[in-house]
């Protein structure tokens, strides 16, 4: 974005003058001038061109040999021919060469009909073959990973998948093996290629060599339609294109948006579509009658809900989950704060920061867009592991480090994938620091001091950068020291003068997919729409206690599962049980909603209409791509209906009109409409949005909390982390189920040795509050010796069972005869290798 524009020049391609920026690749310049030059290996997203396929040869006046247009930067006055006899001969030759070994099995090939090799053969090839010799043979198709099959006979060795693995995801797993015409794509020792972004290679493949296990033979290109939307399974909010056949989603592809995702998707977004058509999904509103849920009409269900909520006489609370759209969050807070006359509406598991601090952190001058990370000289990742919490951000950071030489600094409780830096030849991660679980505020305060003193290398990398981006996870401000951490973040920003930097600033990774949108729409305990002041309400934990004590009588659970995901699961079960009336909306049945009095079927992001807000402030539209199943319907409509039944007629008849209401109430989104947001989104910081209300929070009172005591002998500090695959998505999509983790306790080598346990040992982890759970040991490098880590949100033995424990002891579990039943479900699919 902020890169300096180079001078405009003019080149001549096939007799037509084209204006372009100096130094862009000839292929791209020609494309802008509507001249298509065929390519296979060239893909700017993958980095520098390799010039391997030779498909894009063109003649340039003054250069005797034909040149690859993908790797030739344009110069002023360049005269290029892409269609003369000499170039045509070369193009024919390359197409012919590519087909020497390519099987002509197009009629049974998944790629047939949307295949660049087909298109280029027809467009730039001779149309006939002179090859009579036998082609090469491989075993085919064989699994490259549990999600991808590889057909090596079809492979034209364009290098794209290998370059993705080595230069974008940097997992380095895919390699070219053998050489010459025997070359093939594979992994070391035929190991399965398991990596969180590997699905992208399917989309990169210009032939049918890499196919999705889940999509193979499900549809042909003429059976399908594309529908653009946004994935709301994590805060990355990648732009996607659903492949729709017979009103069902059969595939998810990336929809290039340089400002959001660079065209990449993680495997969760790519393969997490099977759940849309799951038979387990409730597809109708349900009401509880005589102890059991029965299907009901929308009108009946909403009537029932309105009555139940009204009877609580203001003692109502609502918790909004990360999958909700801005419209839903807005309507929910409006209903709770309006007709239900309560102040208790909140999003997320943790107490909100004071409104002033929240507003200060959202200050547009401190904000950076996602694409500005490309231009940062230094990136500090603190308190988040992007691979697990916002996967596509990890690729963005790797790109900045690898291609632009940004300095990367990491400071987290648990080691991250970014610590290892990237491959040889790049600057990689300068330094990775560890702080004790819960000590983010202490770390940040110390860092602010170091930056002031300018002594440590860590601090120098930040102060020396023209543009520094601080990527911070919401967990940093979630604990008891959250306020202090927020103040330290702001102090760091001030010390580094991030506000004055062009591409520097703070970048928050929210804990929930639409965490930012929900907060900015007003579903927060102390702020209303647009982060304006609102009467203080209860946090999630306070709501739980109030329900148990009877201070609250009714509960709205909107796409959220506190029993699984929040602290104190048992207390939550009791609290929900104590609620006189519960309205829940969820995509699948869950532990929290099983006693609901009214249950509404939640929409998937393929069905929903509405907006979500990206962590960098970009509003994006989620668009309905397929019809709602059964009697399910839009949730925004359910909420306007509920509001009307409660006596507040919103007057909104479409999702767009709900957004207009939000826009009127929120100074941040002022002036935005569905049209201005459009297909690629719009950042409110760039469209006139402004923050209203005080931002001077001042430093919180009280110094640092007393340092956590050293763990007792034999005990370890307990850290927990969010695992990308530990949630309902991997459990509800058969393709991803193999990734759904069982609880593991991560230990350092030394700790494991001293405990006499090894990888896979089953242990019982007991907290200092005497709560315990079972887990399998995973020995990991780089884990500090005095800490162990557990996964949040696993389907059994989730870390929240130990809520309140700060240290734990670990002992080998006594053998259990029915051990198999304890972990995982028996119907779990086995992946054959």
């Amino acid at each position, binding site marked *: 974005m902020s890169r300096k524009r180079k001078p405009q020049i003019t080149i001549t391609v096939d007799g037509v003058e084209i204006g372009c920026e100096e130094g862009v690749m000839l292929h791209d310049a020609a494309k802008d001038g509507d001249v298509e030059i065929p390519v296979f290996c060239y893909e700017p997203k993958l980095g520098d061109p390799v010039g391997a396929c030779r498909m894009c040869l063109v003649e340039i006046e003054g250069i005797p040999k034909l040149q690859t247009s993908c790797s030739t930067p344009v110069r002023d006055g360049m005269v290029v021919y892409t269609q003369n006899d000499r170039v045509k001969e070369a193009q024919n030759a390359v197409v012919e060469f590519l087909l020497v070994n390519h099987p002509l099995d197009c009629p049974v090939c998944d790629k047939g009909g949307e295949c660049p090799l087909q298109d280029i053969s027809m467009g730039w090839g001779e149309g006939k073959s002179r090859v009579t010799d036998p082609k*090469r043979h491989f075993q085919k198709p064989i699994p490259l990973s549990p999600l991808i099959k590889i057909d090596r006979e079809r492979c034209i*060795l364009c290098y794209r998948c290998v370059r993705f693995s080595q230069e974008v995801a940097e997992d380095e797993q895919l390699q070219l093996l053998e050489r010459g015409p025997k070359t093939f794509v594979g992994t070391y020792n035929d190991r399965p290629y398991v990596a969180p972004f590997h699905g992208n290679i399917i989309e990169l493949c210009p032939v049918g060599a890499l196919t999705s296990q889940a999509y193979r033979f499900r549809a042909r290109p003429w059976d399908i339609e594309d529908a653009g939307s946004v994935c709301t399974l994590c805060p990355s909010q990648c732009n996607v294109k659903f492949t729709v056949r017979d009103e069902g989603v059969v595939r998810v592809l990336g929809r290039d948006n340089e400002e959001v995702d660079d065209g990449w998707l993680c495997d969760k977004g790519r393969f997490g579509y099977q759940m849309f058509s799951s038979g387990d999904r409730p597809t109708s509103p349900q009401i509880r009658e005589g102890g059991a849920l029965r299907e009901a009409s929308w009108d009946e269900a909403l009537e029932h809900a309105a009555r139940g909520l009204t009877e609580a006489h203001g003692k109502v609370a609502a918790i909004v989950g990360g999958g909700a759209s801005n419209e839903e969050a807005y309507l929910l807070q409006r209903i709770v704060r309006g007709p239900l006359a309560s102040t208790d509406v909140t999003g997320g598991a943790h107490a909100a920061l004071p409104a002033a601090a929240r507003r200060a952190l959202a200050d547009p001058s401190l904000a950076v867009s996602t694409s500005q990370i490309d231009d940062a000289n230094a990136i500090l990742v603190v308190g988040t592991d992007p691979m697990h919490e916002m996967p596509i951000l990890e690729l963005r950071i790797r790109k900045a480090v690898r291609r632009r030489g940004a300095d990367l600094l990491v400071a987290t409780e648990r080691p991250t994938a970014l610590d290892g830096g990237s491959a040889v030849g790049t600057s990689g991660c300068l330094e990775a620091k560890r702080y004790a679980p819960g000590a983010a505020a202490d770390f940040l305060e110390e860092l602010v001091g170091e930056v002031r003193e300018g002594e440590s290398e860590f601090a120098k990398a930040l102060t020396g950068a023209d543009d520094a981006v601080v990527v911070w996870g919401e967990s940093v401000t979630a604990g008891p020291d959250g306020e202090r951490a927020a103040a330290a973040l702001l102090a760091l920003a001030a010390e580094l003068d991030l506000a004055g930097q062009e591409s520097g600033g703070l970048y928050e990774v929210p804990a929930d997919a639409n965490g930012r949108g929900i907060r900015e729409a007003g579903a927060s305990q102390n702020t209303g729409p647009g982060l304006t002041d609102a009467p203080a309400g209860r946090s999630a934990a306070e709501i739980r206690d109030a329900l148990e004590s009877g201070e609250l009588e009714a509960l709205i659970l909107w796409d959220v599962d506190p029993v699984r995901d929040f602290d104190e699961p048992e207390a939550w079960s009791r609290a929900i049980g104590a609620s006189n009336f519960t309205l829940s909306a969820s995509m699948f049945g869950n532990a929290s909603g099983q006693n609901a009095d009214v249950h509404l079927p939640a929409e998937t992001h393929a069905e929903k209409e509405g907006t979500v807000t990206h962590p960098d402030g970009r509003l994006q539209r989620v668009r309905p791509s397929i019809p709602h199943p059964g009697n399910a319907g839009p949730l925004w409509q359910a909420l306007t209906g509920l509001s009307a039944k409660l006596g507040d007629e919103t007057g909104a008849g479409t999702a767009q009109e709900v957004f207009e209401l939000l826009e009127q109430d929120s100074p941040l989104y002022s002036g935005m409409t569905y049209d201005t947001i459009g297909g690629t989104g719009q950042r409110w910081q760039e469209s006139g949005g402004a923050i209203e209300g005080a931002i001077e929070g001042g430093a919180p009172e009280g110094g640092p909390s007393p340092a956590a005591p050293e763990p007792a002998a034999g005990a370890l500090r307990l850290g927990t982390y969010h695992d990308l695959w530990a949630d309902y998505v991997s459990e509800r999509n058969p393709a991803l189920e193999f990734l759904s983790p069982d609880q593991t306790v991560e230990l350092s080598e030394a700790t494991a040795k001293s405990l006499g346990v090894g990888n896979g040992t089953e242990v019982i982890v007991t907290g200092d509050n005497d709560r315990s759970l079972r887990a399998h040991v995973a020995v990991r490098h780089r884990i500090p010796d005095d800490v162990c880590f557990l996964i949040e949100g696993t389907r059994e033995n989730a870390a929240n069972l130990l809520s309140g424990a700060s240290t734990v002891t670990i002992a080998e579990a006594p053998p259990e005869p029915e051990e198999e039943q304890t972990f995982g479900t028996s119907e779990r699919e086995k992946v054959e290798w």
Partner: protein
Amino acid sequence: MPETRMLFRHIDDPELRTLEGYKRRGGYAALEEVMRLREPEELLSELEQCGLRGRGGAGFSMGKKAGFLPRGEMQKYLCCNADESEPGTFKDRELMWKNPHQLIEGIAIAGIAADTTKAFIFIRGEYAEVGDVLDEAVAEAYEAGLLGEGILGSKETVDLVVHRGAGAYICGEETALLDSLEGKRGNPRLKPPFPAIQGLYGGPTLINNVETLMNVPHVVNNGADWFKSFGTEQSTGTKVVSVSGCVKRPGNYEVELGIPSRELIYDLAGGPIQGEVKAWYPGGSSAPVLGPEELDLPYTFEDMADAGSMLGSGAIIVADESVSIPHMALRTARFYHHESCGKCTPCREGTNWTVKMLERVVRGEATPMDLDIIASVQENIIGHCLCVLGDAMAMPVASMVKRWRGEFEETIAKAREAAPAPLDAEPAIATPIGVGA
């Protein structure tokens, strides 16, 4: 005309291999001279003026190439290309085996001239014993202060590492050599950027052949004018020529560039074994094949180029009347098919397809039409590849099909007569290859 020995002077003295023996024969005088008297700029201009052309194959002016390296405070590298893998070429092997210090001296001087403080010798893995000789010589040179920090007490530094290749012809291609040296798969890189600007680990890199670097001490000792007094105007100096194939005395002969090719083959190498010369590769197996008509051409870069071939690495392979040209074409093509790295399409598929077609030619399963296809495929390869490996097969094969087309047709006819393929024969199915079979 006898040999003109410059690099080969005293080559048969077994002591030459040691530092002491080399010094006794006047070795390292040039390096000492450079330390005392010469500025890098002066050295560079001398190397350019002497007209020394690269002996590895491309024949580019060594001095010019060294001059392309940017000046300034960055890490620059010197790589000696000792991956001598071109069929028919074995000159560097003998030079390094018998006179390793001359190479080390050349590297040290070139390193100082081009301000490259880190140098590598990339030697093909198959030259295991030669590698050992180099290791010993390098150790000796370090011991004597001729390499490393502060050469001969000066401020100059040249560190030298001998690196053994892993057995790939392509690693003789300069950019593939760099990738291999960096620990990557040895595949050629896209040029530009040329190694002189962005080479090893991204730094400016000078890459020279063994023989080229060995000429450097002689240029320094005797001056550019003396050097230019050998050879022709465009091909100065001497050349170690490897003569092999159907000759009575195969071996390395150092001659002044410009002597008639016939003298090399008939006088020095003893002439063909059976009858007359039928065909000859003038510069390694990648050079288009010449016939008896070209035997009287002077052996120079320019005359070989004018004749439609190239002097290349200076390796003459002679085929006498006993040799079947189609079989020679197949043998040549198979080599490049085996060695193609597979990165770019025309080379990977072109070598593969050509071999299949030539195999049909010698089996008698081809028609004259296939000869047209073979010729056209070679044209489609030439100039379309990422590096010159594809051209290295296409040029000789194309030259053979063109010049000896009649013999190709006869070969097909004879082979078909000998083993007629039934018209309803099952087509040959390639054996499945792959993983986990």
